[in-house]
């Protein structure tokens, strides 16, 4: 049985439930059976740890719930088995935030090319190190730090 660490409310009166990341799957399975659907996944970089925030939504009772988990090793369990909506969201958060969703079968970058170095939404990402993208004749994209090798 999952354990709720604490409950609070955000400024829009949405209930926030803090849970441990090992309880996530169990918690979400319970809520899925109650008729909740995944709405969005947000990763927040708190510099010493990552927060992953799931917004789930019940279309019948009009209830929005924010589920928050913490992770220090960038790894959280994937929800793709529960909701297909998680597929795209998790890929996006992996791409931009570097959260590794364990159990996602196709965890590739989605908006940036595969060779891109770093995860841009991390606070530690250095915007001054500019990366350039080029494409070869077969349509594969290559990333380099050299300005002359791409745009």
């Amino acid at each position, binding site marked *: 049985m999952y354990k709720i660490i604490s409950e609070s409310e955000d400024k829009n009166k949405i209930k926030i439930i803090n849970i441990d990341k090992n309880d996530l799957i169990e918690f979400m399975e319970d809520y899925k059976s109650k008729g909740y659907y995944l709405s969005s996944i947000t990763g927040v970089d708190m510099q010493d740890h990552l927060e992953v925030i799931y917004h789930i939504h019940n279309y019948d009772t009009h209830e929005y719930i924010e589920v928050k988990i913490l992770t220090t090793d960038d790894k959280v369990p994937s929800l793709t088995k529960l909701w297909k909506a998680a597929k795209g969201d998790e890929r996006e958060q992996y791409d931009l935030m570097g959260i590794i969703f364990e159990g996602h079968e196709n965890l590739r970058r989605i908006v*940036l090319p595969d060779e891109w170095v770093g995860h*841009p939404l991390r606070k530690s990402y250095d915007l001054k190190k500019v990366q350039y993208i080029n*494409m070869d004749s077969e349509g594969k994209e290559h990333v380099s730090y050299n300005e002359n090798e*791409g*745009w």
Partner: protein
Amino acid sequence: MKNGDLGIKTTTIEKALEWGSANSLWPLTMGLACCAIEMMATQAADLDIARFGSEIFRNSPRQSDLMIVAGTTTKRMAPRVKRVYEEMPYPKYVIAMGVCVIQGGPYVDGYSVVMGVDKVVPVDVYIPGCPPSPQALTYGIMTLQKKIKHETDR
């Protein structure tokens, strides 16, 4: 000038061809982002761009003369823009529409936007604005027509 006849003739033909290509700029339907909607509005009834002979928006780069880069060119898109540009036959012209394609626009701080499409393809006319109003785009096309006819150097 004794053998100048030929020269006059060729310039006349060149002039005629220039006149032709200036007055029949078929743009490529290449909307990248927000400016594409304003490009469509220029095509639409209110500011009918067909009056200048740019009526037919061709879908194939092979048949178009003018590439209006309408919208932010990202780094991923830049090689593709380049490729489309190379697919177009000469004489070809490029209009950079909107500040995103001029110098990066609102996304200058970012990591994935090309700071100016002129790094990717040679640009003939720059139209500032975010997005430029249809009038501004029409004015830009008129500037391009003048440029083709060597009438302006703005």
